[in-house]
């Protein structure tokens, strides 16, 4: 993985020093909260319902074990001993004191971590395929390009005061595991007709109040021109995106109002006038970044591990974990171990400092020193030898981290909701906990199979409810928490926005409604259909009838 060099480290140190001076001015009363607000937001520091929240960036979801330990240290020393991994692969600490913030940023900087551009109307932390460098269906490693964009977008002088926040996702694989269609810009690497590496460029996707799947604005962009083309997109958006209405300021509104074709034409026109050589990186720098992601330290191993196979036949619990949480690695003899931060009854995405240390230790010993954070609010040990998988499983189980429910009904995405967030209309966490408890029985969960439930506490859609197979949106009805259900959404290759099931339900009806929806699916499904497939075949009707039967 990419290790920060002296220049990258100086950047973080300078930023931390700047923020320390700004905090001192605030604490001394030299600047007001109103003047301080944009400054702290640019450093990831929000003022929430109960305390300050610090959002730490985890660029494209990649951490070294030392970085994971640094996060554990901060959670233990400055917060309440745990943190919350988000759908943007950031870590949020919800109980921070303002006076500690400069020390935290200093400490994080020593580990090559920061909170730069995790808030504000700028280019936010990048996300990428969590299986980058691991998946067999990859044409190129998206982390190379994500790191290139990270550097280019850091303190970008022209694009730090955009109309609204701006998020970019990159994938290098055939299967989209980075949800690129719901991003402001989605990038998909592919090989062109003559074998050359190129990007398909999507723009104007996004969730929130008005969900859009991003249209393709350019089929094939030579990779060496990535940055100049991004500059052209951002410049068109910065100049012409709406600034009169915060709800209409995202690029998706500009793209939708101009039409994808006209937007693309304006980008091409801007790009044609751009001095590309001044913006695009020289091959030497691209090669330097590429080298940092070269696979390193793999052994030559047989494809099948007798240790792994024996453990599966001897231990049913391990076999279940292997079925649900372990997937193939492109290197023979290796596997990808997914760690669900989704123990039924716990808060989705929460991880204690002790658990972070356990994961760091396992990464160091068994996963070539690397951990990934997936947008599903789970962790991944990307490079585990099949021979070591049983030992990894045992260590995870001892730490309460071996819940075998990846992509199953209890692997629920939920934003922090009204338990923490000042924007929320309703709580998300207790709903997730209640549903997960209802389906905690592993045999039942496996019978139901892949079913992605996503919960947002407000229309900003941090929990991606629009693209949940079952989406749940918290709404406020005269001071009471209600929940609107949507069905049939997907953030994957078959991306779609979910359809509203019917009138919003009170909190105590949500789990029962999910149970009813699952009942319809189990009754109606044919062959190997997933919940999503059955819904797409039958349509809304049978599901709606089951949930609203009492209303007839």
């Amino acid at each position, binding site marked *: 993985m990419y290790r920060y060099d002296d220049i990258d480290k100086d950047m973080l140190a300078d930023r931390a020093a700047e923020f320390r001076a700004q905090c001192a001015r605030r604490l001394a009363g030299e600047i007001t909260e109103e003047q301080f607000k944009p400054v702290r937001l640019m450093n990831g520091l929000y003022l929430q319902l109960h305390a300050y929240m610090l959002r730490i960036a985890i660029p494209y979801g990649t951490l070294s074990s030392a970085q994971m330990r640094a996060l554990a240290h901060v959670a233990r020393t400055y917060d309440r001993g745990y943190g919350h991994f988000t759908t943007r692969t950031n870590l949020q600490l919800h109980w921070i004191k303002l006076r500690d913030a400069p020390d935290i940023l200093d400490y994080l900087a020593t580990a090559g971590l920061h909170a730069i551009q995790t808030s504000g109307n700028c280019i936010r932390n990048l996300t990428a395929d969590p299986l980058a460098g691991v998946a067999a269906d990859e044409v190129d490693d998206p982390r190379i390009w994500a790191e290139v964009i990270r*550097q280019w977008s850091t303190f970008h*002088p*022209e694009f730090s005061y955009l109309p609204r926040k701006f998020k970019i996702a990159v994938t290098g694989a055939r299967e989209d595991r980075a949800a690129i269609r719901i991003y402001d810009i989605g990038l998909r690497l592919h090989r062109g007709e003559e074998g050359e590496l190129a990007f398909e460029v999507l723009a104007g996707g996004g969730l929130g109040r008005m969900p859009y799947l991003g249209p393709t604005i350019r089929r094939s962009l030579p990779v060496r021109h990535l940055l100049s083309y991004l500059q052209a997109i951002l410049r068109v958006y910065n100049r012409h995106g709406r600034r009169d209405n915060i709800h209409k300021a995202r690029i998706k509104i500009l793209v939708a109002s101009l039409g994808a074709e006209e937007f693309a034409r304006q980008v091409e026109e801007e790009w044609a006038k751009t001095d590309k050589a001044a913006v695009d990186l020289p091959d030497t720098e691209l090669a*330097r970044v590429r080298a940092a992601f070269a696979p390193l330290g793999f052994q030559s191993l047989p494809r099948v591990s007798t240790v792994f196979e024996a453990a599966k036949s001897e231990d049913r619990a391990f076999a279940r974990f292997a079925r649900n949480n372990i997937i193939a690695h492109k290197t023979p003899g290796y596997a990808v171990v997914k760690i669900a931060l989704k123990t039924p009854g716990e808060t989705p995405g929460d991880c204690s400092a002790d658990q972070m240390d356990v994961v760091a230790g396992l990464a160091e010993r068994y996963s070539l020193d690397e951990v990934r954070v997936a947008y599903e609010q789970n962790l991944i040990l990307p490079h585990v030898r099949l021979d070591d998988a049983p030992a990894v499983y045992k260590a995870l189980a001892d730490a309460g981290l071996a819940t075998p429910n990846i992509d199953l009904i209890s692997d629920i995405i939920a934003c922090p909701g009204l338990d923490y967030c000042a924007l929320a209309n309703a709580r998300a966490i207790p709903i997730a906990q209640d549903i997960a408890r209802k389906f905690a029985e592993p045999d039942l969960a496996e019978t139901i199979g892949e079913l992605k439930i996503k919960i947002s506490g407000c229309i900003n859609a941090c929990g991606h409810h629009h693209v949940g197979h079952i989406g749940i949106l918290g709404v406020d009805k005269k001071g009471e928490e209600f929940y609107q259900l949507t069905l049939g959404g997907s953030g994957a290759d078959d991306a779609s926005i979910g359809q509203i099931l019917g009138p919003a339900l009170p909190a105590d009806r949500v789990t029962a409604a999910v149970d009813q929806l699952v009942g319809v699916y189990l009754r109606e499904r044919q062959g190997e259909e997933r919940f999503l497939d059955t819904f797409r075949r039958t349509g809304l009707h049978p599901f709606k009838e089951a949930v609203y039967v009492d209303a007839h």
Partner: protein
Amino acid sequence: MSTLIKWRDGAASAYADPFVSLADDELAPDGDVIVSFARFQAEGDLLLGQHRRVGVRVCPDDPVEALAYDLPRIAVVALVFPKFRDGRAYSTAMVLRTRLGFTGELRAVGEVLREQAAFMIRCGFDAFEPADGTDADQWGRAARRFRHVYQRAADDREPAFVARLAR
């Protein structure tokens, strides 16, 4: 005359501002003036013919490309920040400097704050009317806070990807 901060050769200094910024209905006095985009389009030739320097105040909605052929005669382009959050002027500055070849004074006016000093300079601004009482010394320190930059802009700072070649 109000005080103006200018950025020359990596340092910020205070200057007396010789320009008077005119409202559209205000009669032009003798001497250097800055007028709105619309007024420049209507009266630019007249004002320029009166032995004075003329600047143009450009709001974010004004189509700056329309000034292209007049730029060699324009002494100052003053880009307006109606709110510090309104970042359109950064792109306007980049277009003026890197595409239209404007070499005169590029001035930031409106809600101009110390926190933005480095970004503004990188986009090609070289004169500032801070709204937060920042003096030249404070402006200069804010502008120089970062030892490195990652990308090329309208200034002459060496981006990291070039600096790395020499290491």
